[in-house]
């Protein structure tokens, strides 16, 4: 079973809080999944080729022309706070 410190570390990586009363549940569940995942480490694969995606498309570059644009009204639609022409966001620097 993974320890509490590791659960907190994993939660921190995912930017989540873990409440104390959830700790044992997550210890068990994360251990179950990580134990399952460890099975792939035992597979013997001789080939070094990898597959990231089934698609083999090359990169596509956009033409440098103005196309459909998003209106200001639309762009503001999901913002929590708007002031004039700006979306107000929390301070992100100390």
């Amino acid at each position, binding site marked *: 079973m993974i320890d509490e410190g590791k659960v907190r570390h*994993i*939660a921190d*990586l*995912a*930017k*989540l*809080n873990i409440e104390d009363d959830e700790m044992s*549940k*997550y210890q*068990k*569940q*994360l251990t*179950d*999944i*990580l134990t*399952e*995942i*460890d*099975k*792939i*480490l035992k*597979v013997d*694969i001789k*080939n*070094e*080729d*990898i*597959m*990231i*995606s*089934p*698609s083999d*498309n090359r*990169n*596509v570059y956009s033409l440098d022309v103005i196309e459909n644009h*998003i209106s200001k009204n*639309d*762009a503001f*639609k*999901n*913002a*929590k706070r708007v002031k004039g022409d700006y979306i107000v*966001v*929390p*301070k*992100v620097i*100390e």
Partner: protein
Amino acid sequence: MRYLDLDIKTINEKLKNKEIKPIDLVNEAFARIDETNLNCFITLNKEEAIKKAKELEEKEVDNILFGLPIAIKDNIVTKDLRTTAASHILEDFIPIYDATVIKKIKEKNMIIIGKTNMDEFAMGSTGETSYFGNTLNPIDKTLVPGGSSSGSASCVAAGITPFSLGTDTGGSIRQPSSFCGLVGLKPTYGRVSRYGVIAFASSLDQVGPITRNVYENALLLNVISGYDKNDLTSSLNEVKDYTSLMGQDVNNLKIAVPNYYMSEVIDKIVREKVTNIINLLKEKGCQVDYVDIDYLEYAIPLYQVIALGEASSNLARYDGIRYGLKIDNFKNIDELYKNTRTIGFGNEVKRRIMIGSYILSGENADTYYYKALKLRKEMTDSFKNILSKYDLIIGPTNTDVAYKLGTKQDDALKSFYDDLLTIPVNMAGLPALSLPVGYKNNLPVGMHIIGNYFEEDKIYQLAYFIENKLKEEV
């Protein structure tokens, strides 16, 4: 009699000769939502649907899908229509554009009835991880409808709409289709644009049709397929008429059955139903061979690394800053992220993004992720090898039929094991369909038909043959 219970060709004729109007179909759909009470919708599009139906009265019936109601899984964005992915974090999200598949169905003048309930961010196999409560299975309300496209399957099975769109990352179209006795197809990766689909695992996700029968499934695939410059991974491969091989003789088809798909892990009666079909095909003159496909037994841990790794990256965007839920109680930016995400995401999603973040962090990326990419390549090559000798692969869609709501909810592995037979197909990016082929204790059993890349037409050819054969038997 309800017009929506008729087949599509008949409805189309009635629309053409003005015997019925699109508004009649829309009214029937909304009436049935109220009658059935399955919680298969998160957001209804009633006002707009009625408006659209009225507008269509002035237009010529120019295609077979004209004026027909359709339901859309709630992880496909719809302009000005709330799209939540069944998550608290997107509870008030109003998209400002239409996904490419939505543009395409609107061009055919189909009418969107609403956004269907689903597992949160498509993570789950029962519909129970939805923030908006679980969806019920119309065959038996005490059973799960399957997931993650729970509402999309439930609403077609209940006769609310003849068509719905789902998404499939590890089985999320095929498994609920199987549990609800429907036809569901996951197209070849790249066949259908993912532009405007809320990403779960970008290298696995595909949009596909869920319908009452094979023919109608192909009709919807015809509409949603095609290259899209907004999706780098969409294919330039020519779009076929996917109905074109239906009715053609199947006796020349060479069919493989993976031994793994008929092993003891699969319920005995489910295997029997599939074996009946195998015998039917042999009698018809098809070559059917049992084969081994290497590495299938590693599909679940492979999926956990690939899908959860990609998910952790895709879901990093929900940070309380740009859109979606924002919790006001925070002292610094890190607290804002954490407090918002902790309240915004449900348990299944949290668990999955934790695992995903962990296996991509530091040295783990090499140990787990890189190894998984090699394994994915090997498994895919194994499929390709079989499909170089055979036209199609068949087996069961699922290990069993629909089960009770609330089963093993604390088991973190359960939702993965439900997708044991469907996940490998997403890994390889192949197309696959689930077709109802019988019943176990009055619950539908789904058969899986897997095809080669961009050969959805051949899948439909076989599915159509089997569907008709089974109809004759009744």
